[in-house]
């Protein structure tokens, strides 16, 4: 059976994904957000994390670098700052990014909240990408 939810993931750069899926799980602000067919209309922010979706028996994953999602009449639109499939992730680059972010986190002045938050966010992005790449 074809999926009942049509899922669309767009970034400023391109349309990443347009599929019919059975269910999906997104990184919501209050924890993982599972969406099944006939979900109530919802608008939410998304954290950095993995968006996974099921089609038939197959599970697929996309990393998201934060964004927004709208659920309306079984149409889920995800506006992501960036999105990547596991096989698009360059592990070496992600590893570098993680090392850089960790260093930045140590060197940042602990009173500078903004810089600290930025460093933490980039570390998290790198970690999520590595985790997704590992599932390849």
């Amino acid at each position: 059976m074809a999926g009942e939810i049509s899922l669309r993931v767009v970034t400023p750069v391109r349309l990443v994904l347009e599929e019919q899926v059975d269910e999906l799980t997104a990184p919501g602000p209050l924890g993982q957000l599972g969406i099944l067919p006939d979900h109530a209309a919802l608008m939410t922010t998304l954290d950095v994390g993995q968006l996974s979706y099921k089609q038939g028996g197959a599970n697929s994953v996309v990393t998201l670098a934060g964004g927004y999602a709208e659920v309306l009449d079984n149409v889920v639109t995800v506006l992501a700052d960036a999105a990547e499939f596991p096989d698009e992730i360059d592990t070496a680059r992600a590893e570098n990014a993680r090392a850089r972010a960790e260093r930045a986190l140590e060197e940042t002045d602990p009173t500078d909240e903004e810089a600290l938050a930025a460093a933490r966010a980039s570390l998290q992005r790198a970690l999520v990408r590595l985790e997704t790449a590992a599932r390849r």
Partner: protein
Amino acid sequence: MPSLKDIRKRIASVRNTQQITKAMKMVAAAKLRRAHDAAVESRPYAEKMRELLANLSARVSEDSHPLLVAREEKRIDVLFVTTDRGLCGGYNSNLFRLSENFLGEHPEQEMSYRFVGRKGADFYRRRGRSAMDDSPVTWNAPPEEIAAAAAGRFIGRYLRGESDGAYILYSRFRSALSQVPTAARLIPVAPAKVDEDQQLTEYLLEPSIGDLLSTLLPKSVEVQIYQALLEAVAGEHGARMTAMESATSNASDLISHLTLQMNRARQAAITKELLEVVSTAEALG
């Protein structure tokens, strides 16, 4: 009358120039296609974001977020988008005119400029208007980074009360042949209006409407700048393609004119030689 040799030299040099303009035209056409694709690909995101914002802002009052509140414009920030390189016809001079008109329409206000594109920065450096900060003025960074940096800067200044509004001056892409210099307001954000009679969908909102607005609004400013930059790039290549196309055909005209001149000069030389031979023969005869 220029000698035969002079004319030949000129024809060769014009032909050289023509080859360059032809090559530039083809390069611009290829880049235009890519830039145009990028602008089209980014459209779904921008449209959805506009939709979300319209929907959210329809259910709150205007003063629920500082970026929605308009105040009297005393100090205005301007993002002036031009190109780094020339040879693109009237593209930049149209933008200069737009900018000068914009300044003329706001004589009372204190204007701070931020530049994308060396041409605009040079234009105002010659006129003694400096940029509001020392951010780079070239297109070296990817457009999304330029947009994020500019949006962050403008929003920060607006929220701290250092400016009372922000505008972007850029060339809107209509087609390869036509770019429209446009001044658009970035801040305060004016969300699209939802039709009155259309029922507002009742959304669950997470984490809260305030949180959603306070991340969506800055993002929408950034997206608006990003879109404008993409269109500006596409327009630049379009303008360059058109300019180089007409330069190439001008060179063709010039070459055929010069060839005609050359043939006339050659004919005149032959006639002169003949005359000399004939008159010598007669004199000797």
